[in-house]
């Protein structure tokens, strides 16, 4: 028990920024869900078992149009494709985590990844428990924030027109952040250009799958020009 509380105490300070972020983004999510007629129960369910902010935001558009589970699955796979990289980066760290491993992998969202790949717990703290508590705290912040938003949304009424821009803002910020830290802008440009071209050709309701295929194809074709070892080594840190 003592060991557990020690790990929790060590983990907590690292998660404070995530708490702020998730309270804000989670609340916006809960309010949005509420405004589309999905009560706090649905919000809590989504946040507890999906635990993928971007995918959940995008899924709102699937909850407010024609029922299309295949698109929802494909979009989730595309949005979360970055987790493949997180997973590959965490193979070693999660190696001897025993019973905790499934949960650690399940809860590996962007924010948890960014803490766990960069922070080492103090020596007298059990590393596996430390990683577990970082994951658990972040997970609970996300559920807390979105439930709070779901409740607020049904109590206070204010004009939320345009609040869904928070998602666009999140992706633009991520895009700018990536642009700043990465020297090779080719993958980012490929993503934007392929999507715009497909949007123009296929129209707004049919461009998702063509975009995914085009992006994968162009990335695969341009792989040869991307084997500069020095750059690969630099990027491994990110």
């Amino acid at each position, binding site marked *: 028990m003592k060991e557990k509380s020690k790990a929790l105490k060590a983990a907590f300070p690292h998660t404070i920024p995530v708490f702020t972020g998730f309270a804000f983004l989670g609340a916006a999510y809960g309010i949005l869900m509420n405004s589309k007629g999905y009560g706090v129960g*649905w919000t809590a369910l989504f946040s507890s078992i999906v635990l993928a902010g971007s995918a959940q935001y995008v899924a709102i558009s699937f909850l407010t149009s024609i029922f299309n589970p295949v698109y*929802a699955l494909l979009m989730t796979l595309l949005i979360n494709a970055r987790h493949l990289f997180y997973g590959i980066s965490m193979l070693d760290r999660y190696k001897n985590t025993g019973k905790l*491993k499934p949960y650690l992998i399940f809860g590996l969202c962007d924010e948890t990844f960014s803490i766990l790949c960069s922070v080492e717990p103090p020596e007298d703290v059990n590393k596996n428990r430390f990683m577990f508590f970082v994951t658990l705290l972040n997970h609970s912040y996300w559920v807390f924030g979105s439930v709070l938003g779901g409740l607020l949304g049904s109590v206070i009424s204010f004009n939320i027109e345009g609040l869904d*821009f928070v998602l666009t803002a999140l992706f633009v910020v991520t895009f*700018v952040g*990536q642009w700043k830290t990465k020297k090779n802008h080719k993958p980012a440009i490929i*993503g934007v250009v392929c999507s715009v071209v497909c949007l123009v050709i296929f129209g*707004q309701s049919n461009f998702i799958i063509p975009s995914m295929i085009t*992006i994968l194809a162009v990335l695969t074709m341009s792989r040869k020009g991307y084997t500069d070892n020095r750059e690969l080594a630099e990027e491994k840190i990110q």
Partner: protein
Amino acid sequence: MTLTPIQTFIIVCMLTVGTVITRFLPFILFKNTGSNNSYINYLGRVLPYSAIGFLVVYCLKDVNFRHYTYGIPEAVAIICITVLHYWKENTLLSIGIGTGVYMILLQIVFK
């Protein structure tokens, strides 16, 4: 609610399955070998950037440049976010102000 509860529940399951696949796949694929497959490694490295580029376009897919508002609120907000984020690099600040600017433009200026 646009969908029925059962349809909504199926969407929740789809999201969960999709997320679980992307999170568990590397650990299943590289259970013993480690990350030796260079193609997967390459995709893991470049796809995050392309995916975010795609997502930005996806979010803006319904903007109509030929009709009223002409995409101006979106453009102004995105410029604000970009400048702010280059300058301060504070994710929450950029998202908060960017969304605020957009809401003000939409609700007051372009009423």
